[in-house]
């Protein structure tokens, strides 16, 4: 069952088919450059389905972020691609939603909801992605220079701490 998580201001909820156009448009735009983007619709649909299916297959996945007025402002996710060594915490905000602390609030909530059931949790962040690095720092994550990284992925591995298993 995909959880709905309510934070102080936000609602994190399961993806809906109707969310796809906003997700696709975000990945096609310039703000997706730190997510190896921009990406076309086919890739966007693959990621959208992966984020969703992951809940059934692994017990973690992606949630859309709703602002207090119900509008979609972005997404937050824990995912592990088939060739990724560890689960990864990620987030993205649509245009105009930055600067309000939404990503931090959502990322803290999803991390806290899931980390107790994970063996580890990291975020892969481009060294030039200053806002993401600052957010990871606020989450208490620390760079791990010795971490195994997915093939072809340069950049930093930030390791999250919390009540991990084992």
């Amino acid at each position, binding site marked *: *069952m*995909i959880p709905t998580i309510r934070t102080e201001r936000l609602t994190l909820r*399961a993806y*809906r*088919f109707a969310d796809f156009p906003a997700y696709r448009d975000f990945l096609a735009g310039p703000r997706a450059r730190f997510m190896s983007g921009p990406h076309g619709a086919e890739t966007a649909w693959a990621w959208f*389905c992966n984020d969703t*299916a992951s*809940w*059934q297959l692994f017990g973690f996945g992606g949630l859309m972020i709703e602002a207090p007025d119900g509008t979609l402002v972005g997404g937050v996710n824990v995912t592990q691609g*088939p060739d990724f060594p560890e689960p990864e915490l990620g987030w993205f905000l649509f245009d105009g939603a930055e600067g309000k602390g939404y990503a931090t609030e959502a990322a803290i909530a999803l991390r806290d909801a899931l980390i107790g059931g994970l063996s580890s949790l990291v975020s892969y962040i481009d060294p030039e992605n200053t806002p993401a690095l600052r957010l990871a720092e606020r989450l208490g994550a620390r760079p791990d220079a010795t971490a195994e990284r997915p093939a072809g992925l340069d950049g930093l591995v930030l390791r999250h701490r919390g009540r991990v298993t084992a």
Partner: protein
Amino acid sequence: MIPVVTTERLTLRAPEAADFEGMYSILGDLRSQYMDGPMSRADAWNFFSREVAGWTLHGFGYWSITATESGDYLGSVGFGRHEWFPETELGWCVTSAAEGRGIAREAATAALKWGTVQPQITSLVSYIDPPNSRSIRLAEALGAVRDDDAERPTPGDLVYRHEVRP
């Protein structure tokens, strides 16, 4: 949330991460040529994810087909409404070990029985590559009728229409 359906020999159940290797044995093989295969592992994973994500996004998706007695993975059957599909599709694929034993027919018959009365399935087709005579025979055995006027995702596809009673 994902119903379990049993037939004389089979159990249709929610997909699990461990089913992927069985799915990849189908999609990575030349036998999958009528399903846009053979595929890389990454593409097969995306295919698998799309099948699973449907349950969340639409309230219908694909089941893993298992032999009730042994638990062996035999393939997948179910419903897809991908971003580029004009209608909902009933689809199936089975492992090479499961071929020639009426397994696809038994699974698809049970899936169809479930699907035809779901309110969220308002029309139902199967998109079939013209040289895929095995699937054409199965669609006809399920009572589907060829619809040459229907919209189709790939110009060369045949469209077989199933009767629904939502």
